[in-house]
C-alpha cells in the first residue's frame, strides 16, 4: 500500500517542480468538456469513474462494470456576456462597426457538444460533434480581437485494463486496490480555431461574413492518441483513494496546418471518495496542462462532489475561479447545470470569463 501511494505522489511532486511558471499563452482550449468534470473544477483525472473517462483518462474504463449507452448527451456552454448580449438584441443584430464596438470588452463564448457513447467493461466508444464560437475584443483604441470559430467531429475509442488482472468489483461489492492503464484513439475532422485578428484585417471589415468564412477555413483530418494511468487504493471501510495521470492528444493532434492544433494535455490528479449507503462524497485535485506555458495557477483544479440518491451537488475551483453545479439523475435521464470560470488572460485574475453549462443526457443500460 505504501508503494502504491508513494509512486504517484512522487510523480506529482516531480511534475510540479518541473512546471514552468511563465505565462505567454492565453486561454487553454479543451477538446472535451464534461459537465461532471467541469462542475468539479476540472478535477477528474484521478477519479475517472464514468463515461468521461473515455475522453479524459482511458485507464478509468477498467473500473467500469456495466454497459451503458448514452444516446443523447447534449452539452451547451455559454458565457455570461453571450447570454446578456443575446438578451439585448441590439447588440447582435449587425456585425458592422457599431455592432462590433458595442461588443468591446465583452467576452462572448458559446459551445455545443454532442457525444453519444457506448461504455462497456474495459471499453468505450463515442461520436464527437462539437461546435464552438468565441469573440473576445479588447482595446477600443486599437482593437485586440480573438475570434473563435471551430467545428470538431469524429469518433473516439478507448480501452482500459487492470494490471493486476482483477475484476473491478468482486461479487462481495468491495473495491480492491488496483493499477489500471488505458489507451485511446481518436479520428477527427476539424475546421477553424481561435485566431487573433491582425489589425490589417480590421481595415477590411465590412459586414463581417467574409471574415468568418476566412477564419473558419476548411475541414482537415487529424488523429490523436491518449494514454492513461490510474491507481486505486482502498484505505479503510468506505474510503477509497485514487491517483491518476493522463496524457491526451499525445504530441499534439494536428490537422494539416489550417485548423487549430489540439494541444496535448498531460495531467496528474488525485481523488478521495467516501462511500455510505445513502450518499458518497468525493474530493479531487488535478494539475493539468503541465507542459503548457501558462501560469501555474491556471493548471490547478479542485472539486468536491456530494452524491445523494437522485441529486448531486458539486463545488470546486477551476484555476482560481469558483465552480458549482447540481445534477439530477432520474433513471434514464440525467440533467446537470454548472457554472464555472475560465481564465482568458495570460495570468490569473486578469480576464476571467464566467460561463454556464447545461448538460442533458439520455441513457440506457444494456446488460
Amino acid at each position, binding site marked *: 500500500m505504501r508503494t502504491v501511494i508513494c509512486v504517484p505522489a512522487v510523480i506529482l511532486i516531480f511534475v510540479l517542480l518541473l512546471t514552468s511558471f511563465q505565462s505567454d499563452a492565453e486561454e487553454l482550449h479543451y477538446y472535451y468538456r464534461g459537465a461532471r468534470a467541469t462542475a468539479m473544477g476540472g478535477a477528474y483525472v484521478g477519479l475517472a469513474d464514468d463515461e468521461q473517462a473515455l475522453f479524459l483518462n482511458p485507464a478509468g474504463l477498467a473500473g467500469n462494470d456495466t454497459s451503458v449507452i448514452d444516446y443523447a448527451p447534449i452539452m451547451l456552454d455559454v458565457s455570461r456576456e453571450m447570454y446578456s448580449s443575446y438578451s439585448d438584441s441590439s447588440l447582435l443584430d449587425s456585425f458592422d462597426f457599431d455592432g462590433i*464596438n458595442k461588443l468591446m470588452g465583452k467576452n462572448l463564448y458559446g459551445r455545443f457538444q454532442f457525444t453519444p457513447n457506448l461504455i462497456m467493461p474495459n471499453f468505450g466508444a463515442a461520436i464527437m460533434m462539437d461546435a464552438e464560437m468565441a469573440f473576445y475584443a479588447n*482595446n477600443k483604441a486599437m482593437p485586440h480581437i480573438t475570434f473563435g470559430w471551430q467545428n470538431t467531429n469524429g469518433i473516439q475509442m478507448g480501452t482500459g485494463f487492470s494490471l493486476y488482472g482483477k475484476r473491478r468489483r468482486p461479487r462481495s461489492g468491495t473495491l480492491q486496490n488496483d493499477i489500471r492503464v488505458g489507451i485511446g484513439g481518436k479520428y477527427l475532422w476539424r475546421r477553424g480555431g481561435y485566431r487573433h485578428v491582425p489589425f490589417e484585417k480590421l481595415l477590411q471589415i465590412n459586414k463581417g461574413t467574409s471574415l468568418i468564412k476566412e477564419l473558419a477555413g476548411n475541414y482537415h483530418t487529424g488523429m490523436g492518441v491518449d494514454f492513461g494511468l490510474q491507481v486505486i487504493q482502498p484505505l479503510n471501510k468506505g474510503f477509497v483513494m485514487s491517483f491518476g495521470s493522463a496524457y491526451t492528444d499525445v504530441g499534439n493532434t494536428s490537422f494539416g496546418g489550417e485548423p487549430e492544433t489540439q494541444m496535448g494535455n498531460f495531467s496528474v490528479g488525485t481523488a478521495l471518495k467516501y462511500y455510505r449507503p445513502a450518499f458518497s462524497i468525493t474530493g479531487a485535485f488535478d494539475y493539468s496542462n503541465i507542459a503548457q506555458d501558462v501560469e501555474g495557477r491556471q493548471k490547478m483544479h479542485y472539486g468536491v462532489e456530494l452524491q445523494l440518491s437522485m441529486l448531486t451537488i458539486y463545488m470546486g475551483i477551476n484555476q482560481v475561479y469558483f465552480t458549482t453545479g447540481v445534477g439530477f439523475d432520474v433513471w434514464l435521464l440525467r440533467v446537470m447545470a454548472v457554472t464555472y470560470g475560465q481564465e482568458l488572460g495570460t495570468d490569473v485574475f*486578469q480576464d476571467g470569463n464566467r460561463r454556464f453549462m447545461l448538460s442533458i443526457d439520455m441513457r440506457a443500460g444494456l446488460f
Partner: protein
Amino acid sequence: MEEVNLSLTAGECNKAIELIEDLYNSSYTDNEVRMLRASAHGCVAGISFFPLVGYLSTRNIVGSEFWMAMTEYFPSVSQTDLKAESGWYATDALQAVLDTGIVEPVDLQINPGTNNVGTQVASHRIKDSNGYLMFVSMSTIGAIQNRYGNPTNEYKKLTPLPWSTKAAMAETGCSYASAIVNLLDGIDETQTIMQGSLKNTMEQISSTFGELIDTACGYGCAGLTYDGAVGADAECTYSASECNPCPLKLRTRTSCADDAKSACAAAGIVRFINLHPFGWPDG
C-alpha cells in the same frame, strides 16, 4: 501587456500609458510594445477605432469637407488636454515599427539613438503601423485645427493657421504638416489591404490631396503662394521641384527646426490649408 489592452477597453487611457511607457523606453521594447504604446496615446488623442472607421465609412468626405470632418471628430481645447501631444507620441511609436530585416540609414532615421528608432520611409514599416498611422495623423490634424483655427459651429475656421511662412513655423505647425504627409503615406501603404467603404473614403482623400499637398510643398520651398504666385515667403528660395514630392524629412514632426526645406515645405502646406479651395474653408 494584456493589462494595457484591458485598461484601454475600460477607457483608462492614462493607466494604459503608465503601464506601457517604461517598457517602451527600455531596451526590451519591440514592435508589439510600440503598437500598444501607440494605442494608449491614441486613446488620449480620442481614437475609438470602430466608431471612427464607421464615421469615415459612412460620411461622404469630399474635398475641403475633410478638414471640417477632422475638426468635428477630434476636438481639442488647449494643450492641457494633451490630445495633439498624444498624437505625436503615438506617431513616434508607429514610425518605429519597422518591417523585418530593415536597417535604416542614419539620414532616414527618426529619433536616432533611442530604443525606438523610426523611419521616414513608410514602406519600411509594417502595414499595421501605417494603417494606424492614418488615424493617429487624423487626430493630430483635428486637434491642432481646433486649437489654432477657432472653428465655427460648422467646423470652418475663423482664424487662419499661423505658420504660413518659414519664419513663423513652429514645432506645432511642423507637426501639423507632418501629420498631413504621414496620413497620405499611410493611405498609400494600406490601400491594397483596405476594403469596402473605408477604402473608398481613404482613396478619395488620397486622390484629392496627394498631388495637391506635394505641389503645396513645392510652392512652399519656392516661396510661392498656394496658387503659384510669387511673394509668399522671401526666406524660401529653393526650386519647387526640390520639394515635390514633399521632403522625406517632413515625416519627422520636429524636422523644421533644423531643416530649412522642411520648414519651407511645411509653410507651403499651411498656406494651402488656409487659402486653397480644397483647404480648410473660412467660416
